[in-house]
């Protein structure tokens, strides 16, 4: 038995846990145990797994001797010696060094989300845990899958579960937001399926590696207008899943309606969808400058819009939500430049963002937990009540703005290098200016919430901060520092994934 058996387990274990906690949701104790076991498995399995491909059902490409049964003569005559021998007949999961890093960090974030949700609720809710696990499974599959239809299926599952995560929070207006998000999601999902259908019609294939091979070896005419239309449809799906403009308003509404632990996974979905669907587009349509320019333009608009919208808000949940959408623009810039260095930088930024945005959501979740209000104008002086948590939250804000020695500094620095190397130094200037603006926005917010004198009418609850939450915040801070001080650990592995985007 080799280590590649762990590759499907990364998706299967969370799904099994999800089903079990949902079945047993009446027994709080059992649910809790299964929740802990499943959560701990999430980051551990990617470490144990060995690099390689997993073919579901064992159907390897025919060149590797995939079939044990002898083929009919007529079929054999067509297949042997042609491209058909190299095609992947099964759903293929590819696992390499880059995927390992992303999945490890993602597993860590998901584990922390499960722990926090168990610690912060008195009676463990099996249904809520079900949705957390299901979303983690969908995200794991997003990174692993090499099959474009499998991507779509998990995209729809994730869309359903996201709405579920919004509905369980009792924030006002969550049902309206959920319905709006689902209606948009039905259109986004259908359009993405339309793009997949057109690619399927031209190539007869849904495996991404096979599609890339067919297009780049000239089996399919790359300038076919239908292919251009398919690129447009896939980019539409990418925009919807990522929440770049014109979907930034609904996406930030979604973030601000979730519980802190739910918001962590909701933003993980945006980040992971951004890199996985983005990589699919880069791999298939890498020869189309139009597609890359579209991605680049939308990302730049997203960065600027995100920060502008965040500056005028008074609700700190909305501010973080808009900033999170804006930060996604940096990943989009990395992917849109489409050089190996820039894609590495984009993936690095994605990994950092998974950690830092979750860190911020928890930190400001604690403010909400203590004060029951999310209006900055009503807040103040909280540093007396939660000194350590306040310090950690401010550090998280600094990390997001790109202050050294934290991790985002390294990835933004790499992005600027990539932009200059690609011959667009203006982008680097824009990114630096926007980072400074983000930093100022955080200083203003941190001063208003933590440092200025407490307003008289503000009531701070005496409930102590849950220990699990503090532990999770410290874990996130340590990850930020480790990646920030030793970026080579992550960047080298992500570089391998970035290079596969250009290989046939």
């Amino acid at each position, binding site marked *: 038995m080799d280590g590649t058996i762990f590759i499907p387990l990364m998706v299967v274990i969370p799904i099994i846990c999800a089903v079990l906690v949902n079945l047993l949701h009446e027994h709080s104790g059992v649910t809790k145990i299964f929740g802990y076991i499943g959560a701990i498995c999430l980051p551990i399995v990617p470490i144990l797994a060995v690099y390689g491909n997993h073919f579901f059902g064992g159907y390897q490409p025919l060149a590797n001797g995939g079939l044990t049964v002898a083929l009919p*003569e007529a079929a054999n005559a067509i297949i042997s010696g042609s491209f058909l021998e190299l095609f992947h007949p099964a759903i293929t999961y590819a696992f390499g060094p880059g995927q390992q890093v992303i999945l490890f960090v993602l597993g860590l974030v998901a584990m922390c989300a499960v722990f926090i949700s168990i610690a912060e609720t008195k009676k463990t809710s099996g249904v809520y845990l079900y949705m957390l696990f299901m979303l983690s499974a969908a995200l794991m599959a997003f990174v692993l899958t090499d099959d474009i239809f499998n991507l779509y299926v998990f995209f729809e599952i994730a869309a359903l579960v996201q*709405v579920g995560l919004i509905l369980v929070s009792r924030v006002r207006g969550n049902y*309206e937001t959920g*319905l709006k998000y*689902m209606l948009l999601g*039905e*259109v986004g999902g259908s359009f993405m399926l339309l793009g997949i*259908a057109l690619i*399927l019609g031209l190539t007869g294939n849904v495996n991404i590696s096979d599609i890339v091979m067919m297009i780049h070896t000239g089996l399919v005419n790359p300038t076919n207008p239908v292919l251009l239309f398919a690129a447009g449809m896939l980019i539409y799906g990418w925009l919807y899943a990522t929440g770049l403009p014109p979907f930034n308003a609904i996406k930030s509404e979604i973030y601000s309606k979730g519980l802190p632990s739910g918001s962590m996974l909701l933003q993980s979905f945006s980040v992971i969808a951004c890199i996985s669907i983005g990589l699919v587009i880069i791999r298939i349509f890498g020869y189309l400058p139009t597609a890359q320019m579209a991605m680049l333009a939308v990302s730049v608009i997203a960065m600027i819009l995100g920060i502008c919208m965040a500056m005028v808000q008074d609700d700190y949940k909305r501010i973080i939500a808009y900033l999170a959408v804006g930060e996604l623009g940096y990943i989009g810039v990395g992917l849109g430049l489409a050089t190996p260095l820039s894609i590495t930088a984009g993936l690095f930024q994605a990994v950092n963002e998974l950690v830092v945005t979750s860190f911020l959501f928890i930190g400001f979740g604690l403010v909400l937990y203590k004060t029951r209000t999310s209006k900055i104008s009503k807040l103040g002086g909280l540093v007396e009540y939660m000194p350590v948590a306040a310090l950690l939250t401010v550090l998280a804000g600094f990390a997001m703005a790109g202050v050294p020695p934290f991790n985002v500094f390294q990835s933004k620095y790499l992005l600027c290098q990539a932009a200059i190397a690609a011959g667009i130094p203006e982008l680097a200037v824009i990114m630096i200016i926007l980072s400074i603006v983000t930093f100022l926005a955080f200083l203003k917010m941190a001063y208003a919430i933590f440092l200025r004198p407490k307003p008289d009418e503000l009531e701070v609850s005496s409930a102590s901060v849950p220990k699990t939450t503090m532990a999770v915040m410290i874990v996130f801070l340590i990850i930020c520092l480790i990646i920030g001080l030793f970026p080579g650990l992550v960047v080298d592995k992500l570089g391998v994934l970035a290079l596969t985007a250009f290989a046939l």
Partner: protein
Amino acid sequence: MAIEIVQCGALITAALLMIIGLVALVYLDNVLKKIIGAAFIGDGVNLLIIALGYRVNGIPYIFLQNMDVNSFLGQASYPLPFALVLTSIVIGASTLAVMLALAVVLYKRNGTLSATALLNDKKLGEENNE
């Protein structure tokens, strides 16, 4: 020649269903009608994928005992799109069910099914900033 009308017609029908769904989603006010419009978009895409696997003068892709392999390979339709559509139909139905449930809950809370009253950005924004 005459038979190819079948495939072209199916593609045109798929396109029209998608357009009808989109128009309903954008212009109709009733939330239930919007939801059904969204379901029609999904139907249209499914129909398009099925039309891709069609083969003129073909037979269904079910291999029976007494068939000749060579003529089966020459005539059978392409089954991969059909396998995909089976999944897609079920996903569409479950999405529709969740959306309908949401619409019912919203009606019970607000007493209306009008989208302008329910999903208005302005109203939501004011509620948030009260």
